[in-house]
């Protein structure tokens, strides 16, 4: 088999969400049907229209890092370090990391915004002196881990994680790396971010019922809820993974991407660009719509977006759509912004490993414009071999990532 077509496996996962800091804890959370959304207590939200979020309150210091130094880092930097280190350890590659060409592709859409806001809130002046910034988070992480492969961060807004995974797979197929850390992180529940999204009128105002606020596809949905966290995956070729007897959690089977070219924020009414991304991913994975066992939807709980995604899926999957179970885990985790697609890839890995599909919670009254095979409120055991995860970002980015069970 040529390197170009060689299957690429996920052999390690490092992640942080409000459900916990391990793959098992997060998987349990996703299948539990619990909401991670709470009233925000880390800063004054009394003047904010939306006062709720799924906020990560602490990230453990990874083994090998200095606890005091780690605690002083920007939360985003803590998240990245934790996810990358634990992914390598999970894959059993920590001790070999210096011998291999390990690449790093991270979705970090607002690294500098969050860094500068954090610094300014703590009395710093970094925002006034960008000329003194000597490195970036991805490069600093690569250096601290002693990695030798290419490094980049990227942004496609909410679609960042899917793009990072696709790039990592491409690098493996081109022989540029032996394995690759790929994923995305976002610690976006900050005063400015909450205010900005609130002024965009994108957020739910269910402040008195936080756990009920994120309700994708429900007729009573009134906006999204912000969330925090990240997920980073170790990608390597099937051939090398089998050789070292690594456990394959999933195959990165297919990826498709397109742009709406319609509006910077609002999804287009024309479902063709979005459906092109979905169809491209299925074609890349060489699967038919009939073979999809679970779709993790982008569905952010906004009135326009959820209906738009339904139209996209109707066009992409046609007559097969009614039988494909679909859920939005944002109902539980909130919207992790540039880390959303990475966490949702983790949700798909959960579905493949547990043979159960997570639910869309708070789905009490499905919107008729979102007529789909919903998984309302409780996870369901299902045979899952192939999953698809949609992510659509500001700027009109559309992506779909197909994961397949490892044989």
């Amino acid at each position, binding site marked *: 088999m040529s390197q170009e077509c060689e299957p690429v496996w996920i052999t390690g996962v490092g992640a942080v969400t409000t459900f916990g800091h391990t793959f098992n804890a997060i998987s349990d959370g996703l299948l539990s049907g619990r909401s991670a959304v709470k009233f925000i207590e880390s800063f004054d939200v009394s003047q904010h229209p939306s006062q709720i979020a799924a906020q990560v309150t602490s990230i453990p210091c990874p083994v090998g890092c200095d606890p005091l130094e780690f605690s002083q880092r920007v939360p985003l930097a803590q998240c990245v370090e934790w996810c990358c280190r634990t992914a390598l350890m999970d894959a059993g590659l920590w001790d070999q990391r210096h011998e291999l060409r390990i690449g790093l592709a991270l979705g970090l859409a607002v690294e500098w915004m969050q860094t500068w806001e954090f610094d300014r809130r703590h009395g710093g002046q970094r925002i006034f002196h960008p*000329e003194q910034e000597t490195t970036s988070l991805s490069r600093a992480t690569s250096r601290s881990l002693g990695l030798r492969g*290419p490094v980049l961060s990227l942004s496609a807004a909410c679609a960042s994680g899917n793009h990072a995974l696709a*790039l990592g797979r491409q690098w493996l197929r081109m*022989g540029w790396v032996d394995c690759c850390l790929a994923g995305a992180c976002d610690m976006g529940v900050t005063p400015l971010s909450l205010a900005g999204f609130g002024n965009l009128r994108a957020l739910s105002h269910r402040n008195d019922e936080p756990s009920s606020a994120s309700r994708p596809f429900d007729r009573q949905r009134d906006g999204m809820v912000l969330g925090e966290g990240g997920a980073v995956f170790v990608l390597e070729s099937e051939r090398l993974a089998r050789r070292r007897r690594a456990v394959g959690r999933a195959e990165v089977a297919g990826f498709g991407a397109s*742009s709406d070219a319609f509006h910077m924020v609002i999804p287009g009414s024309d479902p063709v660009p979005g459906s092109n991304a979905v169809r491209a991913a299925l074609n890349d994975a060489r699967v038919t719509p009939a073979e999809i066992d679970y779709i993790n939807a982008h569905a952010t709980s906004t009135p326009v977006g959820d209906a738009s995604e339904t139209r996209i899926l109707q066009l992409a999957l046609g007559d097969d759509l009614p039988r494909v179970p679909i859920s939005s885990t944002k109902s539980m985790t909130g919207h992790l912004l540039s880390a959303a697609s990475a966490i949702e890839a983790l949700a798909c890995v959960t579905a493949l490993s547990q043979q159960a599909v997570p639910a869309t919670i708070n789905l009490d009254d499905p919107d008729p414009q979102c007529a789909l095979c919903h998984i309302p409120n409780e996870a369901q055991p299902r045979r899952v071999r192939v999953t698809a995860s949609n992510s659509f970002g500001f700027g009109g980015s559309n992506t779909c990532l197909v994961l397949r069970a490892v044989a």
Partner: protein
Amino acid sequence: MKDSAANMLETASVAMAIVAAVRVRHTLEELTALRRCPGDRFEPAVTASWLKTQDDHSMSTLLAVSAAIRQQGLRGTDFARWGIVTANRFIGRHALLNSIERFSQDGPWGASLHVVPMNSPHSPAGALSLSLGSRGPNLTSGSGLGANAEAFLIAASLMTQHSLPGLWLVLTEWENDRDESDPNDPLRSAVCCATALALRPADTVHQFGCLTVHGPTEESLAQDANDFQSNEAALIDLLTTITAWDDVPLGVEAPLGGGLRLTYRRTNAAE
């Protein structure tokens, strides 16, 4: 796992034809004036109302691409399936400063609702996609140091991954940024620069240069100090060579990190 050597023998290189290359510079005053009255500076034409909320980096991105389209007679090209990759160094800093100040004075209602959609790293690529009607993938490299090199890695990966007919690669940065010693008008001397490259598959007939991202070798890995600051300097020299249309028969090279290298050579455009 000791078969890195075997892997490296199979590394791929990605060659891309350059069919347009332009570098533009605009003062903040010029960008402000163009926002109000775009005239015929944009290809395709855009309205003042649409430009009103676009970030300065987005404006520069659009102006550079417009200049490139005119320079090489690309008006009429179907960009519908083209991809877009941008690198926008420290985009959003000015908007964030304003937002922080307004937030401290007026509370949450003072925070700009435009910062996330219009002043964030994804914004210039999204704006260009909208302007050209490009429905291929659009994304941005990290917006800090090393962003330019990252953008070339992304461009090469996308061209092969999606078999794109073309891709716009646009790099923006402030040449003179805020001058904090002038608190009354810190942006008085600010100049926003943008370099736009139109890239097509290597076998494109009408091209004037060839960019190649070379996969790592034993030698390049050993030599790669991952000193991305000096890598950036080499990349800036390479970009200057491209946009100056210098004839470089032996080619120009810049490391991209991880043992990868970018080379440029001028080719003879077919008439």
